[in-house]
């Protein structure tokens, strides 16, 4: 079936190119049938990509090692969940995922807009076809996921142990859905520029896709942070790593876009800004994919060894050039239809919010690429670490939370100062109470930036709570409904507004968690023998005994060996037990001995923690295997040719030796306040986005009616 999969990609490439050509031909000549043919080509592309993806998934599930990709990224012992998700752990598989998601999204949006945007849609089809063709060309020309091996191995290399975590495996499809989703508004923006139809039509048609893309990308970023926190052994969730930054940048610029398109919809303003923003968002999405897949982040020299780095750069260059040429040449058609009436207006603050978001993205862009630029110019890489990012990003984040509450209280066009003061009085009073409580009852004053953030978040929550309350009260005045019904109907009839408010609440709660856990974290690294103890914060921790296990690891990752510890943790009158461990995966390196290969391959931390709404207690262990080196070396000499069941007994004996004579192990303990609120905030953002994106009952009814009317029109014409 590898041949069939490969054929799907080849035909898919030509189908995408046909979609480009047919759509453009139809658009230029006014021949509708060619436009429809181009759209059908995109539907066919979606089917071909899904077919190819299914064939590859099947190969992974069957552990068919004739596929080079399966041999490289899976094994017979890989758990089924990780076999399914291993497809996108490799470069080739992730390119196929990108292309498949793009084809599906493109098919969906073109189906939904098949009766609207007649001028713009053909150009959007051409753009989407061109992007799909690029990714298919990468696979057909350089990174074919259906390459087969002449000599089929009996076993695969297995999935990278670091990736054996549920959050990490769902993270790539979420990110890619976000990246791909932004191609939709980009394509329609290009179509709007080509046709000079620069009103709000293209924004209305693609707004939901933009919101879905933004939501998926944000969820993917959070899942990556969750993985970092619960899987890696350093105890943090964000390190300003270039790969993390690569996904955050398009999300920030996409957030700016989601706000500013509202201004264009309502007031016909910021047209140049909006098309520029979506071009920048899509470019950053491509850049994010390029940064992860090109190898350039390891070193600029590693870039040269990548097979697709240059192609990505050329494509990104073309996207930037096309966008710039179109925006500049269409400037006369992008003039605002209205002027800013007042600085005290929602549109003025949306613009300010945009500037802060874009500034934050630019700071991150500079910090991410500075090491590469310095290496290219000076020959030596100068790194930019988390302190640099924190210094610049923290004040911008505080300003963002400040602006997040201003937007809801303002109205479009203008708010009088008197009305603004009236609206802000209650939230200001609530915030003053919160500030007093924080100063009196907590150590919040020890970190001024955090204290400011806490106050701004309190203000934000008060403002949004007031918005819901005042809106429900206004509705009750008109309809006489009960409070719950008024609240539900208010939200239901104003989904974009109140869904957006929920998103703001979620972001505020998330920042609350970030501020508290960053500023008030307590950490200790200690080296202990069994029976010894230490303190961190107000926790007392005792190393009770070591553990050593063969197979059956808690996380279901398929690790053959795990060394760990049983730790008794006391906090006040509460006592609980934690069992951190470290998983060891066998290496396929032929230079390693038959026994030592089980102890000298990849190793991952299996953190244990006690989650809580107030704080998390996080514990990781790094066992010291030095004492086992001599017995392992001896076992290599004596049992290298023994059957596998004998070797298993030897390994079991070695693990027992560790349990009976454990050397000191190194522990890291972290007390992190309010970390759980980061994930809770993310969930609230997701809920708010769902509310905002959900179609209204009237819109659903209109779609059903229009389908019948269209059908009636066609049938009457044929009769």
């Amino acid at each position, binding site marked *: 079936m590898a041949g*069939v999969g490969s*054929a799907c990609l080849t035909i898919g490439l030509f189908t995408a190119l046909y979609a480009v050509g047919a759509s453009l031909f139809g658009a230029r000549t006014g021949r509708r049938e060619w436009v429809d043919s181009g759209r059908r*080509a995109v539907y066919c592309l979606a089917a071909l990509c899904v077919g190819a993806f299914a064939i590859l998934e099947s190969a992974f599930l069957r552990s068919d090692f004739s596929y080079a990709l399966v041999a490289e990224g899976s094994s017979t012992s890989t758990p089924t969940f990780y076999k399914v998700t291993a497809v996108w752990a490799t470069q080739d598989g992730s390119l196929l995922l990108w292309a498949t998601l793009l084809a599906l999204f493109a098919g969906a949006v073109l189906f939904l807009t098949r009766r609207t945007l007649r001028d713009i849609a053909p150009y959007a089809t051409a753009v989407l076809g061109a992007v799909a063709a690029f990714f298919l060309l990468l696979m057909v020309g350089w990174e074919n996921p259906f390459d087969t091996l002449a000599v089929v191995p009996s076993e695969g290399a297995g999935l990278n142990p670091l990736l054996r975590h549920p959050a990490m495996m769902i993270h790539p499809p979420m990110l890619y859905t976000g990246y791909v989703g932004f191609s939709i508004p980009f394509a329609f923006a290009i179509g709007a520029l080509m046709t000079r139809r620069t009103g709000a*039509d293209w924004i*209305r048609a693609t707004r939901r896709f933009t919101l879905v893309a933004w939501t998926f990308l944000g969820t993917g970023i959070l899942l990556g942070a969750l993985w970092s926190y619960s899987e890696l052994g350093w105890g943090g969730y964000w390190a300003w790593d270039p790969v993390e930054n690569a996904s955050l940048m398009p999300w920030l610029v996409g957030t700016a876009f989601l706000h500013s398109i509202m201004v264009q919809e309502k007031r016909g303003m910021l047209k140049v800004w909006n098309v520029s923003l979506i071009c920048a968002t899509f470019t950053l999405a491509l850049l994010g994919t390029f940064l992860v897949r090109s190898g350039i982040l390891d070193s600029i020299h590693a870039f040269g060894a990548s097979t697709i780095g240059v192609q990505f750069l050329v494509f990104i260059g073309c996207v930037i050039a096309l966008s710039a040429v179109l925006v500049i040449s269409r400037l006369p058609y992008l003039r605002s239809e209205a002027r800013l009436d007042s600085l005290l207006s929602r549109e003025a603050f949306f613009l300010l919010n945009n500037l802060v978001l874009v500034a934050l993205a630019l700071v991150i862009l500079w910090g991410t690429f500075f090491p590469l630029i310095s290496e290219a110019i000076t020959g030596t890489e100068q790194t930019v670490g988390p302190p640099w990012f924190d210094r610049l990003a923290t004040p911008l984040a505080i300003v963002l939370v400040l602006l997040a509450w201003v937007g809801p209280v303002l109205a479009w066009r203008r708010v009088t100062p008197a009305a603004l003061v009236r*609206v802000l009085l209650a939230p200001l009073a609530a915030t003053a109470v919160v500030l007093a409580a924080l100063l009196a009852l907590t150590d919040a004053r020890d970190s001024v930036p955090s204290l400011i953030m806490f106050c701004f978040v309190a203000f934000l929550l008060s403002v949004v709570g007031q918005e819901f309350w005042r*809106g429900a009260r206004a509705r009750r005045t008109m309809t006489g409904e009960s409070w719950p019904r008024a609240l539900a109907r208010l939200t239901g009839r*104003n989904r974009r507004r109140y869904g957006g408010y929920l998103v703001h609440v979620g972001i505020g709660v998330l920042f609350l968690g970030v501020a508290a856990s960053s500023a008030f974290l307590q950490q200790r690294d200690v080296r202990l023998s069994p029976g010894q103890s230490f303190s961190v914060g107000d926790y007392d921790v005792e190393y009770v005994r070591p553990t050593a296990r063969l197979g059956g690891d808690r996380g279901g990752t398929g690790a053959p060996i795990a060394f760990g510890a049983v730790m008794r943790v006391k906090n006040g009158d509460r006592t609980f037990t934690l069992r951190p461990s470290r998983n060891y995966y066998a290496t396929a390196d032929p230079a390693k001995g038959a026994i030592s290969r089980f102890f000298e391959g990849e190793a991952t931390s299996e953190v244990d923690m006690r989650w809580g709404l107030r704080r998390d207690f996080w514990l990781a262990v790094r066992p010291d295997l030095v004492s086992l080196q001599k017995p392992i070396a001896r076992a290599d000499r004596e049992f290298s040719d023994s059957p596998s069941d004998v070797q298993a007994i030897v390994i079991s004996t070695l693990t027992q030796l560790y349990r009976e004579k454990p050397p000191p192990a190194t522990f890291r303990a972290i007390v992190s306040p309010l970390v759980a609120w980061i994930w809770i905030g993310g969930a609230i953002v997701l809920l708010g986005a769902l509310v905002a994106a959900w179609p209204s009952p009237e819109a659903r009814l209109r779609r059903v009616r229009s389908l019948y009317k269209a059908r009636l*029109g066609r049938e009457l014409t044929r009769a």
Partner: protein
Amino acid sequence: MEYVVALLVLAALVALAVSVPLRRRGQAERLEETRVEELTAAKEAKYREIRDAELDHRMGKLSERDWRMVDGELRGEAVEILRELDALEGRTPG
């Protein structure tokens, strides 16, 4: 061989699918349908803006004077959309 056979079969299927519109006739009368769709979406967006402005007024963010001005403008724009919709729907069959 598997690759070549699959290539030919898939190419034929795709060619069949994309050629369907090229073998069809009679597209012109659907122009008005799409304009009706676009205007209906614009109408709903305008109604949403009118409701937003009214809600802002009831919540005290917009003064009476500002609200009446904004409401008047928005209703005028909505009327223009409705006029164009009525004209189109009067011409389309059904």
